[in-house]
């Protein structure tokens, strides 16, 4: 059974079809990249998978059960986590607090009113482990609002990882970072390969071809091709619609 299945999803904003009969099956353990030009509807698609938006029609299944109308928090409890293209952290919380809160979401009730959460070692330890793995281990007590852009992107990933997902939806995790920092980031994602299923939206083609098992190309809300990185690279329709454009620019 596929881990995540999209059946004929459609969503329009007025006359604009942002998601146009999209069907896709993401297999357990694979990294499935979705590429496409600006405005193709990639972020909107992720928002439907994670529950911020509801499709007009079609169905989303996680491990065979229908999640199309579940709220975002309910989906997180089923093991679906997302990161945001535009960094979305808790700016007034420390780095450790940001991640510890994500751990808290999956460990016991949060309707506890008296115990000091800052002293809950299991939460802090789990958060530290994730932060060490994302190279933020030495920034634990810095306010999230005070981080650099690259650190923000890593915190964004750490928060999503801390919810312990089985499927991780990554919306341009590398946005705005490059060079050695980007390479390191790709390494960290590769290290998780096989342990969790990822849907990866990314403009950085080096990263996509380095990580993805399969790639789908989204243009004007429609999937025009799905295949291995090699198949996609040599697909004439894709070259015309997207890759050629990228090379030209």
């Amino acid at each position, binding site marked *: 059974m596929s881990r995540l299945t999209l059946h004929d999803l459609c969503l329009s904003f007025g006359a604009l079809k942002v998601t146009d009969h999209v069907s896709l099956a993401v297999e357990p353990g694979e990294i499935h990249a979705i590429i496409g030009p600006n405005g193709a509807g990639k972020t909107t698609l992720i928002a439907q998978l*994670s529950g*911020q938006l509801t499709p007009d029609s079609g169905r989303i299944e996680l491990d065979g059960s229908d999640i199309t109308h579940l*709220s*975002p*928090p*309910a989906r*997180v*409890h089923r093991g679906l*986590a*997302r990161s*945001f293209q535009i960094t*979305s*952290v*808790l*700016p*007034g*919380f*420390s780095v450790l*607090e940001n991640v510890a*809160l*994500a751990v*808290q*979401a*999956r460990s016991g*009730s*949060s*309707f*506890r*009113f*008296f*115990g*000091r*959460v*800052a002293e*809950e070692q299991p939460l802090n330890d789990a958060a530290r482990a994730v932060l060490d793995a994302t190279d933020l281990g030495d920034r634990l*007590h810095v*306010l999230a609002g005070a981080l650099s852009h690259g650190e923000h992107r890593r915190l964004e990933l750490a*928060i*999503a990882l*801390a*919810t312990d997902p089985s499927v991780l939806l990554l919306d341009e995790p590398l946005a705005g970072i490059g060079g050695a920092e980007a390479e390191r980031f790709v390494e960290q994602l590769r290290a998780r390969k096989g342990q969790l299923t990822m849907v990866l939206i990314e403009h950085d083609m080096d990263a996509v071809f380095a990580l993805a098992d399969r790639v789908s190309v989204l243009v004007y809300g429609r999937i025009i091709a799905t295949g291995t990185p090699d198949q996609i690279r040599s697909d004439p329709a894709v070259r015309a619609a997207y890759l050629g454009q990228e090379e030209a620019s």
Partner: protein
Amino acid sequence: MTAPRIHGRVVAALMLFAGFALLPLVAWLADDPFLVVIGARILAYGIAALALDLILGFGAMVSFGHAAYLGFGAYAVAILSRFGITDLGLHMAAAVVVSAGFALITGAISLRTRGVYFIMITLAFGQMVYFFFTSLSAFGGDDGTGLRQRSTLLGSSVLEHDLVFFYVTLAVLMALFWLAHRIVGSRFGRVLTGIRENPTRIEAIGFAPRRYQLTAFVISGCMTAIAGVLLANQAEFVSPAFISWHRSGELIFMVVLGGAGTLSGAIAGAVTMIVLEEWLEVFTEHWKLVFGIILVLMVLYSPRGITGIIERLMRGRS
């Protein structure tokens, strides 16, 4: 959120409490027993401001109808006393039960909205309560009614002594501060504060924000009701004036003046607001205008209120 800042705020609250504890001594030295009377009023408002800060400062819910809970508290005293029930504990229990129910229902409805709509809808619910009590002719309608006596404590009428009443009110404020402080530092408090910081992110890590906001709203309403019980006793009088939207606005001012989201700031805001009010009233009948100017300056130059000013001074020194 960082530890030293929170610690500093607890110290600030302890200093405020110590100051209050010494107030009767000052009143005695200055031979001005009225200070103790004003002191008790400040304490009761301090409780209400503290309660409002829990949702306004930590949950980003600007309730413009919180005076309704002062009203439930005040009228619990008047109504139960009329039927011969005079015990302070029972007055508080009744006020809390009614307020919890009202907060649960109106909160669930109000939380379907956000921002300015939330403010307006809580205002509307507050006004409903206001008009309900103005129509209660058995309790004086618009004019309100005097209390024949203050609530009793374990069957004794010790609260008739202003000094005893003052210290009992101080004890309640301290207990509720401790409670609010623990809530803010708990698992629940972290989720609530997270919702203030970024609700989308909180949903995306698996929390349904509304359940946490509603719970905080109910807790805040119940705490405010306790302030209402104490205020009625302090004034020995209840009237719909306790519930008017002006009063709700004053509570918001106290929180903002003191620095929202700090707890101790809310108490400092209540102190400042009532002291200024009493003081400016002596100088000019246009005190409300002067007060308005002070508030505008505060919001412009110290958005974090009195707490912000003090924190800046402390940092400057160290």
